[in-house]
């Protein structure tokens, strides 16, 4: 067809997964594991904090899983997976040495570079800490480029606190403020009890020069936005990581649309002020 120049230089087929071998599997919580995936051949692609991969268990299916590892470590992709369906259960059951498929990395990640020079508030709920962990690693690696850094993290109960040992290590640092809370305490819990947004009021940050990165269940993110806005933060400096049904992850299947945005290519990290209008509309 003469008229349309479709730029015929062949691209690799983005529908076909690369082969990766599962390495160490760490059980984080009763239903959550972290595993390493190393490419069978070739280098592991670089990724930005906040991006995700599509992981395939052959014969079972494919699911979108955020990358939760340190971007400066180049050998493997690290993923933290919670068992919520057939595919995630199959991924969580991969043994060391098993071969899986991987497509990615995809998506727009956290504004880690753009936040340099400002204070940073990281607000995570439940498994939301996983896609934020790469951003935390990157910020720690370049700590002097940022102002005050606060990490506010909450989960349902003490048994569901993700990366607990790492949180304790981070607490040892003198240059970051860590506040942890649970919605429901058990008898042995000595820490804070209450919802994550209640931690905002006591976090130290300059509302006129702060970038907030938020990830967790949508309801928790909505309340967190409210808390951040009440604290004086502008909507243009709050970033959410959104989630929707994903099939192709490359902008061709239509499933992940959230208003006009495709979560797979316009997100998953989206700026709050741009989505505030539809965020509270039911069933968008």
């Amino acid at each position, binding site marked *: 067809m003469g008229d349309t120049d479709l730029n015929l230089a062949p691209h690799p087929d983005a529908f076909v997964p690369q082969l990766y071998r599962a390495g160490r599997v760490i059980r984080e919580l009763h239903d959550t594991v972290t595993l390493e995936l190393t490419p069978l051949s070739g280098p592991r692609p670089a990724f930005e904090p906040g991006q995700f991969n599509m992981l395939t268990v052959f014969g079972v299916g494919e699911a979108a899983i955020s990358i939760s590892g340190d971007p400066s470590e180049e050998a493997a992709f690290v993923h933290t997976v919670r068992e919520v369906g057939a595919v995630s259960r199959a991924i969580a059951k991969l043994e060391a040495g098993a071969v899986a498929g991987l497509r990615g990395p995809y998506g727009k990640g956290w504004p880690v570079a753009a936040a340099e020079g400002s204070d940073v508030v990281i607000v995570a709920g439940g498994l939301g800490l996983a896609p934020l962990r790469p951003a935390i690693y990157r910020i720690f690696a370049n700590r002097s480029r940022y102002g005050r850094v606060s990490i506010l993290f909450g989960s349902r109960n003490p048994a569901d606190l993700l990366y607990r040992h790492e949180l304790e290590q981070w607490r040892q640092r003198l240059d970051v403020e860590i506040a942890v809370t649970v919605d429901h305490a058990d008898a042995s819990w000595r820490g804070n009890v209450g919802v994550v947004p209640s931690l905002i009021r006591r976090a130290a940050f300059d509302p006129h020069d702060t970038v907030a990165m938020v990830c967790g269940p949508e309801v928790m993110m909505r*309340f967190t936005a409210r808390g951040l806005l009440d604290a004086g933060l502008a909507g243009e400096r709050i970033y959410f990581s959104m989630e929707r049904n994903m099939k192709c992850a490359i902008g061709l299947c239509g499933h992940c649309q959230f208003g006009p945005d495709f979560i797979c290519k316009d997100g998953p990290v989206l700026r709050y002020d741009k989505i505030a209008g539809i965020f509270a509309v039911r069933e968008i």
Partner: protein
Amino acid sequence: MESLERILKEHPFFAPFAPEHLRLVTGCARNHRFAAGEYLFHEGAPANEFFLIRHGRVALEIAAPGKAPVIIETLHDGDIAGASWLVPPYRWMFDARALELTRAIGIDAACLRGKCDADHDLGYEMMRSVLTVLQKRLQATRLQILDVYGRH
């Protein structure tokens, strides 16, 4: 009394109060210091003091027989501890235990209620401020019971 008035003014709850109202309230106020582990109040006891936390941490707890007490919320600097002193039958619904050295203002409830009855402008200010705190507390509590992190 003068330094107490200044202390009250520093607490976020009283920030929007007019000076003459603050003076009225100071008349019912006194300073408290609770050691770690000490109780501010117990469930079922008469709620005869309005506590505002200046520094420290306080756990709101419920104890069920045969079980260790469960913390349902942690209060911090700038928080107020409950509103049962304002609403009949004026009895505390929870235990409040200091988790660390805690300095608090205690305002005699009967005294304060009396002054609100006598000066309705003061009463209106008190109601408005308490209601604002409770509304935010209610929102947070509702988010808490939504159990958003539960199995999807």
